[in-house]
């Protein structure tokens, strides 16, 4: 009886299972890398890696080897996720300028000065109001965090443009 079971397992069931798994594994591999990519934490990264990994899977000749590659990618995905998270944090740090409350106060005043200049009825009045606003905005500049270097940010936008964005978002 046992011999019959062993025979049916090895001669019939096992080849059937292997054949079935072999047929399913390319599909499963693609699903697995897409699932892994979707868990990278960022839609852009997910899209990029899903396509990149799928292209790599297509390079593999065997069916089961594709599944092996997909499993390997999934196993190392936490490391990749950490790398990508660090990269995003680094980019955010690079592009974020801390603005101190005195700087915001000065810029609010400058903002109001610009409004005054806009409403001025004479060219001289407009010039004076705009000039004062510019001086106040310039005075706000050294109020930045001392850890941040002065000058244009890596994106090429000036500090004034950046601080102006802050003001636009806030109502004076």
């Amino acid at each position, binding site marked *: 009886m046992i011999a019959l079971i062993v025979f049916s397992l090895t001669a019939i069931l096992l080849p059937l299972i292997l054949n079935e798994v072999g047929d399913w594994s390319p599909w499963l591999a693609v699903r697995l890398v897409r699932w892994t990519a979707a868990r990278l934490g960022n839609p852009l990264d997910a899209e*990029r*890696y899903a*396509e*990149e*990994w*799928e*292209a*790599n899977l*297509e*390079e*593999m000749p065997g069916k089961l080897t594709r599944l092996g*590659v997909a499993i*390997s*990618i*999934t*196993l*190392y*995905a936490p*490391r*990749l996720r*950490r*790398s*990508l998270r*660090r*990269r995003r944090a*680094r980019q955010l740090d690079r592009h974020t300028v801390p603005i101190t409350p005195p700087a915001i106060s000065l810029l609010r005043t400058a903002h109001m000065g610009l409004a005054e200049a806009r409403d001025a009825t004479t060219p001289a009045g407009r010039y004076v109001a705009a000039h004062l606003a510019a001086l106040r905005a310039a005075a706000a500049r050294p109020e930045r965090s001392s850890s941040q270097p002065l000058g244009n940010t890596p994106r090429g936008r000036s500090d004034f443009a950046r601080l102006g964005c802050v003001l636009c978002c806030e109502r004076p």
Partner: protein
Amino acid sequence: MPEFRVTDATLDVLEVLLTQDDTLYGLKIAKQINRPTGSVFPILARLEEHGWVESAWETDSRPQRGARRRLYRLSPDGMPQARLLVRDRRGNKAHAHTGRKPHLRPGWAGTA
């Protein structure tokens, strides 16, 4: 000194990238250094994060293929740094850890 952790696998990847092959993608790099495919992508991401490596989608039009391959190469800034790092860490033993077998070809030398 690089701002990231340099492992043996990182040096392997850098060595392959230093060959300046224009068609290097994740799987190909992994095969060349005899390491699991998945292990290469975190390394490439780290190198990319620090500006040593740049990547781009392949431009070769392949209508029969759906997904495009992402090709990696050393950036102009990364190239000298990678060369220096590999030389510092590996010295003359470069290529020794990549697991690539030397090309052994039969020849007639010494038979005459």
